[in-house]
């Protein structure tokens, strides 16, 4: 058990799997993106580096939209969930785990069904608009589906528990004596929060932003079901190019750029907080 090679033997099977089915494919898309050709005759590697500026030029609206929708939904989830996580952690009392359980209930409903129910709620004659229209608050031509609002609503809803969880864990870890000490030193309630609790919960906040941000920027199901032609995100493009059109180089180039952009964000995060905190909260 204590021999030198044991840790290697123990981690070898998992690493082989991850290496073969995660790292190799990830590296392979680099070479695929540099190929030219067409779906019928196949593709050959021609070191076509111009694909990156071309793709960036062609799909910059979708790329920008992904980061915009992803950013807005992440921010909304953060603003919505921080107070909730705070209240449960500090004032939840004996029912803490019950509140947490209620908050995490959406996890028990299939992702696709959660989005479908939003289509139900937001549709033109659906629960929300139908009611508002029949009371006369909204005009008959009011609609939400196919608009950015609908996509962001779906993305934000999916983000809520993912955002709440790491923030709650961080808040829960805070030594209550520190907060009390601040109070003893005459910090007001606001000051205790601003100078003690908020800084100490920062790793949880960043973990939440990272988790939710990456998921939502790359998401395409919300845009597919709740959105319309004007709300296409980069995930939708990658999916259609790869699976339907068979244009592998373009899809690979887009994937690479998305991955790179997000890796930069992760790298900055790791520099500031270390990789351990990502593991701890994810």
């Amino acid at each position, binding site marked *: 058990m204590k021999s030198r090679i044991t840790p290697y033997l123990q981690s070898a099977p998992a690493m082989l799997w991850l290496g073969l089915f995660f790292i190799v494919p990830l590296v392979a898309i680099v070479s695929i993106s540099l190929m030219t050709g067409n779906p019928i005759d196949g593709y050959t590697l021609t070191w076509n580096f111009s694909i990156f500026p071309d793709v960036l030029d062609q799909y910059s609206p979708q790329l920008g939209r992904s980061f915009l929708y992803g950013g807005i939904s992440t921010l909304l989830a953060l603003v919505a969930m921080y107070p909730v996580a705070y209240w449960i952690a500090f004032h939840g009392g004996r029912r803490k785990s019950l509140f947490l359980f209620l908050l995490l209930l959406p996890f028990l409903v299939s992702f696709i069904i959660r989005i479908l129910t939003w289509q139900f709620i937001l549709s033109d004659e659906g629960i929300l608009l139908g009611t508002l229209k029949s009371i006369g608050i909204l005009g008959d031509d009011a609609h939400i589906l196919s608009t950015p609002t609908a996509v962001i609503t779906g993305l934000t809803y999916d983000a809520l528990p993912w955002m709440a969880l790491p923030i709650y864990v961080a808040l829960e870890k805070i030594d209550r004596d520190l907060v009390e000490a601040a*109070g003893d030193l005459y910090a007001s309630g606001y000051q205790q929060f601003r100078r003690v609790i908020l800084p100490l919960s920062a790793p949880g906040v960043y973990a939440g932003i990272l988790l939710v941000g990456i998921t939502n920027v790359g998401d395409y199901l919300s845009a597919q079901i709740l959105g319309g032609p004007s709300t296409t995100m980069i995930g939708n493009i990658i999916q259609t190019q790869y699976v339907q059109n068979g244009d592998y180089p373009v899809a690979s180039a887009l994937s690479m750029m998305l991955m790179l952009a997000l890796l930069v964000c992760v790298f900055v995060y790791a520099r500031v907080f270390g990789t351990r905190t990502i593991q701890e909260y994810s």
Partner: protein
Amino acid sequence: MAGRRTPSDSARPVRSRPWTRFVLPSYVFAVMAYTLVPIAVMIVYTFNKAPNQRLTFAWHGFTTEWYSKLFQVQDLTQALWHSLEVAVISSIIATALGTPAALALARRKFRGRGAIDLVVVTNLTAPTVVVGASLLGFFIALSIPRGILTILIAHVAFNVAIVIIVVQARVSGLDESLEEAAADLGAPPWVAFWKVTMPLILPGIFSAFLLSFALSIDDYIITSFVAGQTLTFPLWVAGAVKVGIPPQVFVMGTLIFVSGVLIALASLVFQRWGDHGDTVRT
């Protein structure tokens, strides 16, 4: 930064403020109600009389018909079966591969540990659309036919990282001297491992398995790339959106939700009865 307050106006305990007593709790309950709305919609609409065997936004009257005709839509039942199959098998493989790796990572310092950490964190944080696209490129390049096998490979790949994280968290919380004590008492390493360490990390392994299962059965994005003609539950539902969703989809969602709640409650009770204060971390 801010001016010091005089003792008299800030010595009140935080607890008695109207802010944390009324405003914040009301807000928390509003958010919780909001997160439950889609779940309520799903459950309520399983009882709607849908005239064309398709879910409609309009209410046509109460029925329990769809519960008795749960498996009437054959393709859907088949897809659900695929999902369950993939979830069970991929979680078992991922747990078997990930647990030894987690033991090595949590207990031993060895060269290459940092690299393994990096691979695991990248796997957890990589956008799913990129993971799916790169795997599809890999399978196409090696001309591996897409189907249930490729879905399984992909699911194991994303579940291994989850298992490593969850089990690692459990193992690093353990007192290593317990195993050493067993060795001092003459237990051979394998006996010490199976009799001492294994029972202690078993809850961690079990929750890793459950988490893998949940993530696998719910995955849409990665599966949509590598599935070929094989349909899982989320894929079938997404495909049916254009033609209309049979009510059975919401019934299955409701049944999965209810069993999820029951399992969660059971494990909560189980935990209370068993080791207190030793709850599994997520």
